[in-house]
Every structure is written in C-alpha cells, then in structure tokens.
C-alpha cells in the first residue's frame, strides 16, 4: 500500500502530478519558471546555484588573481625562473653560482674571492647595473652600488625561486634596473612549518650548516632560521711567479626571522628581520694597502628589518605598502708599516709607491718607519618605502601603479669624510590590456628623481605579446633605462687617517691623507660630476610550452639589440682616479633557454651569444690612446661571447636521484670557464621525517683561472657531502 504523502505540498514535482486547478497551475507554472534556472538541466549549471554549490558548501577561492603569478606568455619581457628545488637538486653550493643557469649571465670571482655576477657583462668589481632584490627589498649596497654575495641573508634551503628579468626593467623597478633585475624570493613561513636541519661540507674548507624551525597557523605563521657559511677560498695565489697561500675565505652567520600575521581575510602583515655577522677574509699580499703588515679582513655586521602590509579590497583590487630598513656595517682595519723614505715621499705630495711586499718593512727598521693603523670602515643604510596598487578594471585590463621613496645613508671617515645621504623618489605605472585573446599590450614607465645627480628621469617600456596559443607567445619589447652614478663615484671624499701612530710620527695621528692628492693628476677626474648612463633596448622573444610525446617541453628564445651610451668607465684606486661617461656600447645577441621534462628525466639547457662593440666617447685629450682602449676593455671584462649550461636530472631506483650539470663561458679575459658538476642523492621519506644524503663532485675541465691569475685551485676535482632532515 502506498502511504499518504503528507509532504506533497512541499514538492513542486509531486504537486504538479496531482489534480490541479488551473489557477493553482498558473501559480505553480510561474513558480516553476522562476525556479527553473536554479534546477535546470545540470549540464548547464545555474548562475544562481550551480551544481557544486548544491552538493558542497562553497569554499573560499584561495588561488585568486591576487595570489597567482602572471603566466609567462603575458609577461612583458623575458624572465628566467630558477626554482629552489632545481638549485638544490643540482647541488649548487653558493647562491651566486645559481646565475650560471641564467642565459647571458656570467659568474666569477674578483679580488680576494669576491663573487661577482652580471648579465651582459659591463662590470667587474662592482655589480652596479643589476637591480638585486630579496623579497622585494633592494639588496645592493647603498653607496657603492655593489652586491656582496657572501653576506646575502639567503640560505639556499629557503629559496622558493629566483626570478631574473633579462633586459632593462627600470619601468618597474626604477633606475639601476639597467641590464636586468634579480628578485630572490624566499619561502613563506607558511611553507616551512616544522623543523629542518642540514649540513654540507667539502673541499677548500667548505662548510654550510642550516637550521630552521617554524609554525604555520591561521592567525600567525613564523620561522626562525640560522645558516653558517664558511669557505677557505682559493688555495693559492701567485705573486712574482711564486705561489703563496691565499687568505680569501669567509665565515658568515645569518639569523633571520619571518612572520605573517593574518589580521583579517583581506589584510595580512609580513614581518622580516635578520642579522648577518662574520668575517670576509682579505689577503695581505693581494689587498694590503700602504704597507699593510696583516690581512685586512673585513668584519661584517649587517641587519635588516622589513614589513609589508598586504591589503586585498576585492578580487580585482589589491595593494601593498612595504617599508624596509637595512644596515651594512663593514669594519676593515689593518696595521701598516711604511719605511721612512717612502713616507717622506708621500708627505711631499708624490704618488705613493704601492709596490710593497710583506716583510719589506718592520717596526725595528732604521730609520724608524711609520707604524700605525688604517681603516676602510664604512656603514651604509637604506630606508625604503614602496606602495604598489594593482587594479583590474576588467579581466582584460590591469593597471599596476605605485610610489617609492628611498634614503641611502653612508657613513665612512675614509670614503666620505663623514656622513652623507642620497634621496630617491619615484612613481611608476604599467597598464596591461588584452583587447583580443591573441594579443596583450603593456605600456608603463617610471619617473624618478635622485639627489645623486639632482635630476629626474623617465624610463618607459612598451611591449606587445602576440599569444599564438595559451602557452605560446611572441613578444616585442622596447625599453629605456638609466643608471645614475653611485655616491662614491659622484661625491667621493676619500682619505686615510692613521691611528695608533707610533713614535716618532705621533704628530700624524688623525691627519688626513687625501686620495685626491695622491692620484695621478694628469688623468684625475676626482670630484668631477658624472651624468647618468642610458640604455635603449629592443627585444624580440618567443616563449612556448608543448607536450612532446610524454615530455613537457619549454622553450624561450630572446633576441636583443641594445644601445648603451654615456657608460661610466675608468679606474678608481689610490693611484689613479679616472672615471667618466666615456664609453658607448652596442650589443646584440640571442639567448636560448629550454627544458624537457620526461617521466624520470629532466633536461635543461641554456645558451647565450653576445656580440658587444664598444668605443671611447670621452674627451679625446683626457686619456692617452692606451687608456682609452683600456676603459673600453674594462666594460667588457665580464662579457663573454658564448656561455651556457646543460643539466640532466635523473630519478633512479632506490630513491636515488642523480644530476649532472655542465657550465661554460667562452671566454673571460684569461680563459674560458668550464665545469661539470655531478651529484647523487638519496632521499628517504620515513613516517615522521624525511632525510636526504648527497655527494657532489665539481670537476673543473679548464684548470686555468678564467679571470684573476690568483684564483688557483690545487685539485680540479672538488667534493662535497650533504645531509639534511626535515620533521
């Protein structure tokens, strides 16, 4: 027997099946019409209540536009992204070496084992023409525009990815993003909850230990991390045909704290802070100045504080306000012993005889030498504000705009005879518009004023991306950028003041010996005003991703044609100071970056070809012909015609993973760089922890130093072992 359906009135389906009067039918029909969109054929989910919403309570959209990265096909320029996992899988031992994986970038060491990297050369000691950022914080030194890779507070284990925008990027990042931008992005504390420990040890006294602990929760996530980096540097140096030990190691300790407070669903606050402390060794024979009798090691004491407020007002509008303060302190002090005749010569105003050798002078000599201390202490700080706003007017029209302010402060008795400041203010905007599916237009620019030159500069960029398919695009990019001289180039007040002076020269205590008076007066440009450098860059590039059988292939090609004008080149030291806007460069070339991901195999290759022509554009009588050639040559010291890398990562049975990488750069001043790295690692995932053991070998195929003759390694095979555990 059927039961009476007491709920029939609640069901339109059943009600309709019952005997209805026409009026009721009319009402119900109207109701059905009204309701039908919500429960229409489920192949067409309703706009009011879709099928998933019928079945499950809706979840908040987590990966919203505000959190997603821009796809490569829409980026206005070529960008290389190096994932942190790739860095670790290849067994890269130092942060700076990562850049050998970037087409067009070269890496080497100068001075006493000071790493230097550049994109398209043009630099040697100071990497002035790349904008380096760590988590959006400008990270090159304020007054010398140099990047100290040894002290960069970025443990390899915490790198999420490194984005390298190849080509001028001043439109987005301001002046000094001249040749490119490097943005190192560390892992969010949300992604590093738990405990991680690691250690690596190897040839030439290499030691790296790492530890982090943290927690992730909805209101607050945090991480405390520590890293020690130590190396003995190169094994030997050469001087006068003789080999000597080389005091060029480093020993750095980095502590960092990262936190994220989620104040509301729309608002979160990032907090970062860190301290770097250690010693960067400098060699007496290599870098000792004015009769140094001991190694002029540099004691490092850096710290930084950073906060960023992220506000998402809607799915189409978000902005952030970032404030950071960084302090770089370097104490470099050394004892000197200058023989009396040499000192008398200097006091008479003649250029110093810098050809000292250790042991040439000792305190007991007769006549009594000058025994004292000198220093190159410097403290630099940078206060930086940035406000960036992103607004989607429509899905096809996006506007990114913002304001920035920077105060660079430098304090050094030696380099600046006290303290000075530079101020920079900027406004930037970029509009991205996709009028059709097959094209995306970008137009933007940056207006910036700086007290370094007391001028304002506009750096524009326009780009058109023709989207061939969802994952293929051809880009045409035109950009302009400037680099302003740094504080030391522009406003040096360089001198040395002896301290702790022994008798009979105690009267010299605190007396200033001005470098301006010491340098060769026939070529000196000391104190002369410099103008900004300019670059005009044109790029045609292609990006594509495809499936080839069972492999994912990515390919990026870049052709570039750059005109660099008013480039600052010359020599800065205690004997010569001739720098000026005196070189022009034209460069063109192409770069390839490709990868193939098979089931157990990953292949990655890069290649760059650079053709660079430079010529002297300074005053014809300012330098002799040799020096004119020399200043042009100086800008090409890191420019290599061919460079590239090839990597092969293979998953093997027994949880083993192997990696083989070949790097080459052909060629630097002395020789080409060629090195093959091999790594075998075993990762075990236990129930409560995972650990990894690895062995890496670096094999130098070319055993000649590529740039500095002092960079000598005794064994062309270098070995490293690693162990890491995560709970």
């Amino acid at each position: 027997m059927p039961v009476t359906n007491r709920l029939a009135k609640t069901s339109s389906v059943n009600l309709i099946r019952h005997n209805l009067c026409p009026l009721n039918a009319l009402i119900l029909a109207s109701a059905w019409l009204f309701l039908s969109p919500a429960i229409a054929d489920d192949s067409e989910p309703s706009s009011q209540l879709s099928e998933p919403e019928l079945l499950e309570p809706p979840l908040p959209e987590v990966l919203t536009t505000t959190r997603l990265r821009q796809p490569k096909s829409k980026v206005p320029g070529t960008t290389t992204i190096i994932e942190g996992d790739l860095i670790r899988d290849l067994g890269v031992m130092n942060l700076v070496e990562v850049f050998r994986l970037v087409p067009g970038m070269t890496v080497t060491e100068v001075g006493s084992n000071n790493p230097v990297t550049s994109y398209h050369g043009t630099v040697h000691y100071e990497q002035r023409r790349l904008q380096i950022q760590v988590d959006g914080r400008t990270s090159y030194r304020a007054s010398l525009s140099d990047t100290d890779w040894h002290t960069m507070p970025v443990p390899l284990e915490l790198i999420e990815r490194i984005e390298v925008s190849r080509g001028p990027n001043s439109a987005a990042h301001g002046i000094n993003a001249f040749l490119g931008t490097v943005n190192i992005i560390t892992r969010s504390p949300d992604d590093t909850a738990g405990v991680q420990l690691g250690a690596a040890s190897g040839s030439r006294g290499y030691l790296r230990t790492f530890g982090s602990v943290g927690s992730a929760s909805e209101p607050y996530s945090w991480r405390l991390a520590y890293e020690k980096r130590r190396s003995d540097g190169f094994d030997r140096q050469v001087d006068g045909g003789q080999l000597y030990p080389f005091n060029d190691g480093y020993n750095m300790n980095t502590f960092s704290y990262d936190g994220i407070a989620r104040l509301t669903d729309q608002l979160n606050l990032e907090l970062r802070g860190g301290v770097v402390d250690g010693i960067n060794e400098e060699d007496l024979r290599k870098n000792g100045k004015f009769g140094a009798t001991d190694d002029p090691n540099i004691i490092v004491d850096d710290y930084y504080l950073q906060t960023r407020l992220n506000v998402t007002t809607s799915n189409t509008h978000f902005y952030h306000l970032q404030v950071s303060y960084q302090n770089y302190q370097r104490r470099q002090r050394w004892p000197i012993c200058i023989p009396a005749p040499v000192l008398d010569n200097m006091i008479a105003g003649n250029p110093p005889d810098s050809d000292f050798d250790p042991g040439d002078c000792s305190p007991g000599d007769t006549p009594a030498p000058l025994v004292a201390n000198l220093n190159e202490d410097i403290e630099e700080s940078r206060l930086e504000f940035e406000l960036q706003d992103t607004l989607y007017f429509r899905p096809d029209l996006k506007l990114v705009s913002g304001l920035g302010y920077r105060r660079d402060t430098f304090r050094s008795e030696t380099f600046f005879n006290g303290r000075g400041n530079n101020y920079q203010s900027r406004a930037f905007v970029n509009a991205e518009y996709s009028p059709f599916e097959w094209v995306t237009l970008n137009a933007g620019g940056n207006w910036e004023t700086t007290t370094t030159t007391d001028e304002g500069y506009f750096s524009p960029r326009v780009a058109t991306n023709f989207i061939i398919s969802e994952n293929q695009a051809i880009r045409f990019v035109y950009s302009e950028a400037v680099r302003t001289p740094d504080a030391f180039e522009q406003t040096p007040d360089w001198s040395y003041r002896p301290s702790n002076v022994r008798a009979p020269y105690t009267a010299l205590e605190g007396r200033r010996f001005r470098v301006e008076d010491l340098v060769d007066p026939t070529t000196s440009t000391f104190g002369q005003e410099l103008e900004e450098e300019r670059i005009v860059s044109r790029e045609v590039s292609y990006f594509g991703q495809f499936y080839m059988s069972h492999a994912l292939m990515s390919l990026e090609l870049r052709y570039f044609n750059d005109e660099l004008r008013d480039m600052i080149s010359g020599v800065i030291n205690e004997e010569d100071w001739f720098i000026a806007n005196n070189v022009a460069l034209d460069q063109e070339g192409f770069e390839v970056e490709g990868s193939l991901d098979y089931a157990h195999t990953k292949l990655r290759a890069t290649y760059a070809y650079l053709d660079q022509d430079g010529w002297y554009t300074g005053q014809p009588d300012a330098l002799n012909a040799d020096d004119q050639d020399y200043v042009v040559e100086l800008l090409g010291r890191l420019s290599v015609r061919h460079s590239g890398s090839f990597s092969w990562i293979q998953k093997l049975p027994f949880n083993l993973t192997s990696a083989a990488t070949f790097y080459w750069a052909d060629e630097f001043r002395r020789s080409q760089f060629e090195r093959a790295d091999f790594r075998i690692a075993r990762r075990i995932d236990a129930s409560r922890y995972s650990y990894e053991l690895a062995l890496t070998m670096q094999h130098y195929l070319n055993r000649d130093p590529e740039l500095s003759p002092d960079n000598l390694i005794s064994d062309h095979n270098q070995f490293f072992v690693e162990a890491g555990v995560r709970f």
Partner: protein
Amino acid sequence: MKPDKHTKQDFPSALSYTGVWLVGFLLCLMTLPHSVFAQDDVPRTTIYVAGPENNPTLTQHMTGLLAKALGQGVSLRPFESGQTSQDSDSLAITLGPEAFTQVRQESRSVPILALMVDSAFIEGYFGRSEGRVGAVLYSPPLIRQVAAGKAILPHATHVAMLATPESVELYEGLMDQLADLGMEGRVFIVSQNDNLIPTLIRALGYGDFLLAAPDSDIYNPRTIKHVLLTTYRRNRIVIGPSRAYVRAGALASNYAPLKNIADEAAQQVAGYQQAGRFPAPSYPDTFKLEINRQVARSLNIPLPTEEELRAAIELRLSSLRESNDE
C-alpha cells in the same frame, strides 16, 4: 513495490473558462515535463526520496533529475519519518550518508538505493544487506583522479597523498593500481593537526602532484587555504577531491554530474525491479573533469581541451583495465 493508480483528470473545455484559465493552461503546456502528462494511464511505482535535511534544494533538484531518468512509471515522493512502519517494501532512494542512515535506522528491511555516498561508507551495508542495499558512488575513483593528474602532467611519476591514521584506508586500494599507470605513490600520515603543513611539505618534496581524496580531516574549509597556497608556491598541483576544491584552487578533479548519477540510479532501479536485488555499488559510466585553467596558466602548465584530457584519462584507464583482465 506497488503500483499507484491515479484517476484520469478531465480536460477542461477552453470555451467554458476565462482567459486567465487559458493562460494558465498554456503555461502548463509550455513548462511542465512531458512525463507529467503522460503518466496518467500508466500503473506507477512509488519510490521515496530522502535527502539531507539541511539541503532541500539538492533534494528538489535531484528529485527532478530522477523523475526524468526513471520515466513515467515511477512516482517519486518525499520520504517521511515513520513511513516505513506502513510501507517497508517500496524502494527508497537516499541522497548522502545522512539520509541513508536515517532510512536505515527506521527499517533494516527497506530496500535502499544510496546515492552520493562513497565506497568506504556503503560497502559494509551492501555486504550485509543481501542485495537490498545498492549504491551509485559519488566521489570519483582515486585511480581516475591519478589518471587525470598523469594526463595533465605526463611526466609525473610520483603521487603524494595525505591522510590521518584513521583515513589512510581511503588510499589502500589505490596503491596497487598505481604501478599500472607508471606511477609510484606514498601516503604521508598527518598524526596531529599541527603536523599538517610540515607533512605536506615533505609530501610535496616527494610527489609531482598531491592527490586529494574526500577526507574532511585533511581537506576542509579550515585547512584548504594553507594546503593550496603551500602547494602552489612549491609549484605543485592538487588533483581532487571535488569541484568545490577546484574552484578554490585545486587544478582539476573528476566529477560525476548529477544527471549521470540519476541515469545510473535509474538503471539500478530497473535492475532491482527485474532481479529483486541490487548489483554491487558502482560508479556512473561517465565523468567530467573540472579544471582550474587560471591556476594552470599561472603555473605555466599547458592544458589540452577538456575533451582531450578526458580521452587521455579514458585511454589510461582502459589500458589499466586491460592489463587487469589479463
């Protein structure tokens, strides 16, 4: 089940009614399903539909789909508490575990076709019911989700899974099947809530993608934000567990449209009417794939069309079936 006879409804004469009635009649003609009119002369079987109390819209929607799928010979009526004391022979269709439990608690002898339940939930009941409990499973088979992940990332070789000690069984049957897809898998156990992210990080270090089963201890509105963001920032993707999660940021999930579930339910009802017992719980014949293309684009993952992906999934699964048959 017993036929339910309805008296024939007299057709009103248009001449004897006002224009309002005529309009009402025409609207009925335009809007009401054909089956509603065609039913009157046919002996009809009553099937009761029990849905979740807190989701009457779903019950209403599913009732409509079932009415279409079951055709004219069936009258659907809402299940009501206490009715099994009067009629314990008519079939009940339940929507979700809650409704199933409600009906089952009232009478263990009522034949029930359970919809929107998972295999883990219904298998015990099916085994004990001697054919009086059947089911159309709702969540897609995990191996199908893995096949989707493999279709999206053909180079993937390792699949990572997260589970609590209580839910690890969800993945039990999957592990043996992975090798046939050329995959290896590992379940990472989250022993406490605090360990979710650390365990996830280890899992992402292992897997090319994260396979998410319907496990509310791991994947719920409270945890999904952390899971999705951490996975995204580590350049990994999440496959599953459902369409709602894809909308939140998972890359893809198979799903059975409700219409397909209703069609499968109709087949099972027909089978029950003929054989007097339900077959083993089964999945609908066809699945669709929900994809979050925005996330894929952002991760620079080239995606074929949904049709191509579904074809790739079916190809992998058919080769899997063939190898199992052999």
